[in-house]
C-alpha cells in the first residue's frame, strides 16, 4: 500500500512521533494501561514501516541496515539536504 518514498517516510514520521509522545507520557505514568497499549501499537507499526523502507529505499537506521553489495547508509542523501 505504501510505495512512494515520500509517503512512507511521512508515515514513519507520524507513527514515530506517536511513539515519542507515548514514551514521554509513560516516563511519568509508567503503569498507565491505555498509554502502554497505544505505545505498543505504534511501536509495532513503526518497526514494520522501518523495515519496509529499508527494503525499498535503503536503511534509516543501523538496525534495519542489511548490506547486500554496497554500504549505502552514508551515501544516500542526508535529512537536511533539499532534493533537486
Amino acid at each position, binding site marked *: 500500500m505504501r510505495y512512494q518514498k515520500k509517503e512512507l517516510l511521512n508515515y514513519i514520521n507520524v507513527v514515530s512521533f*506517536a511513539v515519542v*509522545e*507515548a514514551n514521554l507520557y509513560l516516563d511519568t*505514568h509508567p503503569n498507565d494501561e*491505555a*498509554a502502554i497499549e*497505544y505505545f505498543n501499537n*505504534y511501536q509495532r507499526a513503526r518497526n514494520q514501516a522501518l523495515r519496509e523502507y529499508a527494503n525499498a529505499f535503503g536503511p534509516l537506521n543501523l538496525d534495519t541496515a542489511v548490506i547486500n553489495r554496497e554500504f549505502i547508509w552514508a551515501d544516500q542523501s542526508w535529512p537536511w539536504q533539499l532534493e533537486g
Partner: protein
Amino acid sequence: METYQRNSRNRQSVLLDELPLAMAYVPMQRWGNLYSPEEGFQRATIFRDLDFPFHGKGGCRR
C-alpha cells in the same frame, strides 16, 4: 497540623491551597483526549490538553 504524603500516582485530586508552601506544583496529566496521529504530528502533540498555539502579533502589520 495534619500532614500526609500526597502521592501523585494516586488518582486523587489535591487542593492546591492545601499543599506545602514554597514548592512548585504542576497537575498530573491524565491520558485521553487524543488527536489522530497525523493531526497530532502536525500540531506537535497528540494531546489536545497540551495544545497551546501562539497568536501574538506584536508590532507586526495585520
